[in-house]
């Protein structure tokens, strides 16, 4: 590490994931007048999950705009606005509500640039929350990021740490492509070190090796990054666990993951998506395609077992993937 890099690495601040996202929004709104936020009760109310918080006070109601309950309307409007010269950041309160605006997402936002032969940019960012764990039941706990990662023309990111939350949000806003940010609602309070440099971004498509290890690679997303790091720390001495946060789901950083398998020969993929046709299968398949002869053991998937999130805590805990699941998966193959 150069002295300069060390210096910069030093310039960090401890903040929660929620604060990191809010600061990313604030910095980008200060930097570029064309950036604004809209969504349900993001204004004076500060957002139901308190992410936009005090932005309203700094930027006012034009730039932190409350919308009617009309996801199709405002996601479609953001698409039209992005095509005509502004850079909206839309909040969809819960990712379960993405169905309301799926037409505008799949047929307009995702396709306009391509269908038009490149005759438009599409600098729109969509932030939304995902995941179970708070007893919010099936319509407020979904993890649907595989849909967006799969659908051509959209980029999808899913932060696991405060640093990536800030860096990905800033990269998304600066991008001229539509980017969805999937925020797991259970980690808003998770703290971490975040670079203070206003030009710090996490490039779309770069994974982060959150912990180095030699025996097994755990590719984990969102909440499961932290839980996997805890498991790795716990297993220290016994099993040497490498933990990778892909950060971007699409594009996906295949190289970082396959390089790791080259070293460890073992893969666990932990993501809260329903297992069938989820994130896991793509990660697994890329490894099989690119590191087939390095794999020493069957691949392990940790995810939601193709159910919805039930309400009652013992049921929800049953289906919610967690650190215990990651540990059991590691133990099965080491």
């Amino acid at each position, binding site marked *: 590490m150069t002295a300069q890099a060390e210096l910069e690495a030093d310039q960090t601040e401890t903040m929660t994931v929620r604060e990191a996202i809010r600061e990313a929004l604030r910095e980008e709104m200060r930097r570029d007048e064309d950036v604004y936020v809209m969504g349900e009760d993001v204004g004076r109310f500060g957002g139901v999950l308190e992410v936009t918080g005090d932005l309203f006070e700094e930027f006012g109601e034009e730039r932190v705009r409350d919308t009617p309950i009309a996801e199709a309307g405002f996601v479609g409007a953001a698409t039209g606005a992005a095509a005509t010269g502004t850079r909206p950041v839309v909040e969809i309160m819960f990712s*379960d509500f993405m169905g309301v605006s799926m037409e505008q997402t799949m047929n307009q936002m995702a396709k306009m640039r391509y269908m038009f032969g490149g005759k438009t940019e599409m600098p729109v960012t969509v932030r939304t929350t995902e995941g179970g764990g708070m007893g919010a039941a*099936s319509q407020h706990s979904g993890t649907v990021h595989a849909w967006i990662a799969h659908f051509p023309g959209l980029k999808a990111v899913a932060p696991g740490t405060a640093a990536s939350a800030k860096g990905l949000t800033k990269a998304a806003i600066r991008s001229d492509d539509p980017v969805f940010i999937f925020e797991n609602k259970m980690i808003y309070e998770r703290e971490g070190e975040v670079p203070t440099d206003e030009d710090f971004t996490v490039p779309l498509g770069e994974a982060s090796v959150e912990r180095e290890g030699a025996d097994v690679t755990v590719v984990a997303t969102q909440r499961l990054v932290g839980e996997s790091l805890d498991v790795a720390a716990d297993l220290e001495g016994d099993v040497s666990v490498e933990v990778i946060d892909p950060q971007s789901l699409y594009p996906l950083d295949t190289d970082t993951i396959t390089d790791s398998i080259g070293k460890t020969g073992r893969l666990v993929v932990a993501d809260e998506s329903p297992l069938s046709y989820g994130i896991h299968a793509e990660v697994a398949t890329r490894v099989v395609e690119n590191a087939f002869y390095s794999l020493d053991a069957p691949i392990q998937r940790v995810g939601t077992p193709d159910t919805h999130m039930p*309400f009652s805590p013992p049921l929800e805990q049953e289906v919610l*993937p967690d650190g215990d699941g990651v540990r059991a998966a590691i133990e099965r193959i080491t």
Partner: protein
Amino acid sequence: MSDYTLETEAGRREALRRMLLIREFDTTAGERFNDGDIPGFVHLYIGEEAVGVGTCGALEPEDYVASTHRGHGHCISKGLDPELMMAELYGKADGYCNGKGGSMHIADVEAGMLGANGIVGAGPPLATGAALTIDYQDRDQVALAFGGDGSVAQGQVHEAVNLAATWDLPAIFVIENNQYGEATPVEKQHNVDNLSDTAGAYDIPGVTVDGMDVTAVYEAVSEARDRALAGDGPTLIEAETYRYRGHYEGDHEPYRDEAEIEQWRERDAIESFKERLIERGELTEAEFEEMQAEVEETIADAVAYAKDADLPDPEQAYDDMFGEPVPEIQQFASRPRADGGTEGGDPT
């Protein structure tokens, strides 16, 4: 016959009792939520009781109701059992949804309750569908959807009302205008003065009624039901009302002040209906006290029942996904769970 109607003295007393039951149920649910007994979210109906009760008083037991996230009052109005409702709020195995649904999804399709619904605007298409079944099978019923003021901005509500109107289905749409969608006042969500103005887009009758007056609501819905049964299609009813509590428990309510709440409280639906019944000689203060005491006991019993009831077994998480189960899920239901079963998925 409905199990209560505002046309008879007994029915009016029953309506009052249901309003009290709703208020007691929700006051208690709020307390138990704040205690940490009830997980998740709760959206309370306190202040809006006249809308649910006036509406369901005009319906027959076989009629369908599609509810909202703020559904407790609709369920009680429709005659659901407070014990099983409370058990559901507590996430217990014998709650209405065996603990899978919670406050936002209480349902009893057999009893005509098509579910509370966590999605704003989702009730109307379901009610249009129920009305389609009724029409298709030539049954003598109607289907009614509740929606909040906020829901009127949703495209699916527009599509559903347009379908029902174009097809002359026996549907009724009741908009509970409680002045806010979460923190956003109705004027910031819509450009019309009255939400019932939207009925013009479907050429169906649209009326705005005082949602703090159970009789006014009852009358509007009765008329709409007659119209629906006569094959004359749907009606849109806006009931002006107010929620005394925050959007959900925990709402810090920066968007309104005490004075506004007080103004509405002065028009309290229970208070005014009680006064009216007393004036008409249909109720005495003592009878009211007794009714209130009974209701409190009912709800206290419901809480006791709910607390006492069993939580579901973890394996039940795998039930009810499909009528015909799939191996993808069954493999989890049957795996050994020595480790407490919370390990999440792994299909190998």
